[in-house]
């Protein structure tokens, strides 16, 4: 029971050290405006992204466990040297937590600890879980195939893969539990970036801890930062880019900004919408600065542009070459311009319809926009908010913005947050896609709270404290409620087995197929069956989003004709909510070898 968590911890340690090694040059490029602890966090975060890019590029040719181990071990040695140097020269002097910051620090430690321990629970869930459907499916298939290629039956595995490549490396070095266990590290980095931005906006270390604590206890943020979701990492890259841009003057600093901006686009397609918002806000920021700074910034923008392109291009060029479209599945503007491999126009349009429907929130009209701050706070379920964002953004951020309204940084961040929210509002209103805006709002919220504490009357101070207290406690309660189940599974093997049986669809068939040595290549007929649980090669002719993965096969029934060509040894047939059994018995050439409720496995004769 202890071996798997230990294996996961070793994998995370190796990749963490490796990321520090890759990010070391990045930390050196940051100017004097950064605290030593910020440099360390930036090195780790930037290194995590750039290491992923290196592995992704190598993985286009070969992606074996051995190659991953050699690459990561080499960089881990550099990272170890870097960290030992920091320790020896006492570059990050204590105390790390002042007495006044003990409470928010304890909250941060508690939530990060919950993330780590709950992350050790085995992954369960059906095709509705993004973790199962694609975040961890791709890495598993790549490791089996020894090369990084989109998994044809799930178009989401062709999304930018910064996070997923690291999940694959974590699986290779730390076993199956390592990807979700590593969430504590990326979540911690998101909180570090939040604190860094807060301190850049004028808050002291205690204020920084409070921002981290309030962000950590937002259930919507937590939901996007655990279970191998990529939204937390995406937001961390975004905040790092913003933080780097705020103090960028020399070319190396602009290059650092460009790298983080590139990692943004290399993590999630929504980064493509964030880049213009960042550009507009940055032009505003620099134009308002003095003439000399604007000129230097113009040159800096060029350096940043090159860095962004170099970091992000690989994911889009690869998709263009292999799948016919740089953004896959193609967005509305590209549907008729690209010929997307495996996807019919109808399948793409169905996907768009699904996205619009899922991200409809409470409407896209002017009134819905006006009411958005209230709706996001009180009607969290309409945005798949997992419990919401607490009360600090709505209750305290307006006060913080008002009292710092003359600051150029405030104007820059407010413009940026408005543009990002508008883009989100018009595309997909999914709460966790807006984590970076919640962090900005929290920074202003804590500034507002501090203002109330310093200049407010007795009532104001009391209400502000109560608001923060209620918000944080409610968030902790919601997160704890969500994590009781995985935590129980970590500490109780019988419960973990029960959870697996209950929450893994067709678990009995997967168990049979995984343990039976004669199973070499499985034909999965139903598109709702999650192949993540299968440890063998498989063919799924019709994918989750209507992908058609085998030429000439337009339905599961057609697949029987080409089974010999596909070297199929076994067929998994299920009676699902979407479709009945596909094989009518007795079936010629198929021998029923396993059957249980709603599941049948056939051997090809």
């Amino acid at each position, binding site marked *: 029971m202890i071996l798997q968590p230990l294996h996961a911890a070793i994998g995370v340690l190796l990749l963490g050290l490796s990321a520090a090694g890759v990010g070391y040059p990045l930390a050196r490029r940051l100017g004097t405006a950064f605290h030593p602890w910020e440099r360390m966090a930036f090195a780790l975060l930037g290194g995590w992204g750039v290491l992923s890019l290196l592995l992704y590029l190598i993985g286009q040719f070969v992606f074996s466990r051995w190659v991953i181990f050699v690459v990561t071990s080499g960089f881990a040695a550099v990272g170890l040297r870097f960290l030992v140097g920091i320790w020896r020269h006492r570059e990050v002097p204590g105390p790390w937590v002042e007495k006044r910051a003990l409470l928010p620090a304890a909250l941060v430690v508690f939530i990060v600890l919950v993330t780590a321990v709950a992350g050790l629970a085995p992954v369960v869930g059906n095709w509705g879980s993004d973790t199962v459907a694609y975040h961890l499916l791709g890495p598993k298939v790549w490791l089996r195939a020894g090369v990084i290629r989109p998994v044809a039956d799930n178009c989401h595995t062709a999304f930018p893969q910064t996070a997923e490549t690291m999940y694959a490396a974590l699986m290779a070095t730390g076993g199956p539990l390592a990807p979700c266990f590593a969430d504590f590290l990326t979540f911690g980095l998101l909180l570090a970036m939040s604190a860094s931005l807060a301190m850049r906006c004028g808050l002291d270390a205690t204020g920084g801890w409070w921002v981290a604590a309030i962000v950590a206890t937002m259930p919507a943020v937590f939901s996007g930062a655990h279970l191998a979701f990529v939204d937390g990492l995406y937001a961390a890259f975004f905040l790092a880019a913003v933080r780097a841009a705020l103090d960028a003057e020399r070319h190396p600093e602009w290059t650092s900004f460009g790298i983080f901006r590139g990692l943004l686009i290399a993590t999630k397609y929504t980064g493509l919408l964030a880049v213009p918002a960042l550009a507009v806000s940055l032009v505003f920021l620099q134009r308002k600065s003095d003439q000399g700074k604007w000129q230097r910034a113009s040159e800096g923008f060029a350096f940043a542009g090159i860095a962004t392109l170099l970091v992000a291009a690989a994911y889009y060029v690869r998709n263009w070459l292999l799948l016919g479209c740089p953004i896959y599945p193609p967005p509305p503007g590209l549907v008729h311009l690209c010929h997307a491999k495996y996807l019919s126009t109808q399948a793409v349009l169905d996907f768009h319809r699904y996205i619009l429907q899922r991200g409809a929130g409470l409407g896209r009209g002017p009134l819905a926009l006006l009411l958005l701050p209230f709706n996001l706070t*009180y009607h969290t379920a309409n945005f798949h908010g997992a419990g919401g964002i607490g009360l600090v953004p709505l*209750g305290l951020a307006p006060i913080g913005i008002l009292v710092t309204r003359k600051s150029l940084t405030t104007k820059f961040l407010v413009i940026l947050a408005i543009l990002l929210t508008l883009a989100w509002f018009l595309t997909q209103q999914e709460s966790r896609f807006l984590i970076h805006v919640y962090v900005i709002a929290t920074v202003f919220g804590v500034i507002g709270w501090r203002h109330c504490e310093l200049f407010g009357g007795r009532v104001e101070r009391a209400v502000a404290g109560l608001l923060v207290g209620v918000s944080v406690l409610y968030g902790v309660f919601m997160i704890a409620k969500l994590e009781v189940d995985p935590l129980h599974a970590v500490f109780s093997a019988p419960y973990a087995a029960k959870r697996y049986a209950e929450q893994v669809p067709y678990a009995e068939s997967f168990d049979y197929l995984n343990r039976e040595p004669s199973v070499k290549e499985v034909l999965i007929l139903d598109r709702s069956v999650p192949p993540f649980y299968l440890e063998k090669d498989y063919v799924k002719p019709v994918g989750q989003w209507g992908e058609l993965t085998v030429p000439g096969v337009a339905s599961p029934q057609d697949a029987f004709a080409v089974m010999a060509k596909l070297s199929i040894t076994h067929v998994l047939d299920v009676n699902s909510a979407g479709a009945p059994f596909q094989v009518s018995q007795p079936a010629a050439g198929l021998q029923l070898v396993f059957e249980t409720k709603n599941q049948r496995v056939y051997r090809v004769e």
Partner: protein
Amino acid sequence: MKRTFQELFTGLATRLSPQLPAAWMLLVLLIFLAIRVLGSHSFESLHLFRKAL
């Protein structure tokens, strides 16, 4: 008349503004508590009650 109104308005605004942040925060907090603690059923009951009236 105009001057009197202006004086009244300015006076009111000056007297109210220090209380505004507290009032705003209290409002945010109370709506939250009403929704989360009392639950949506209470709102439903209130709605039905008003409808009955």
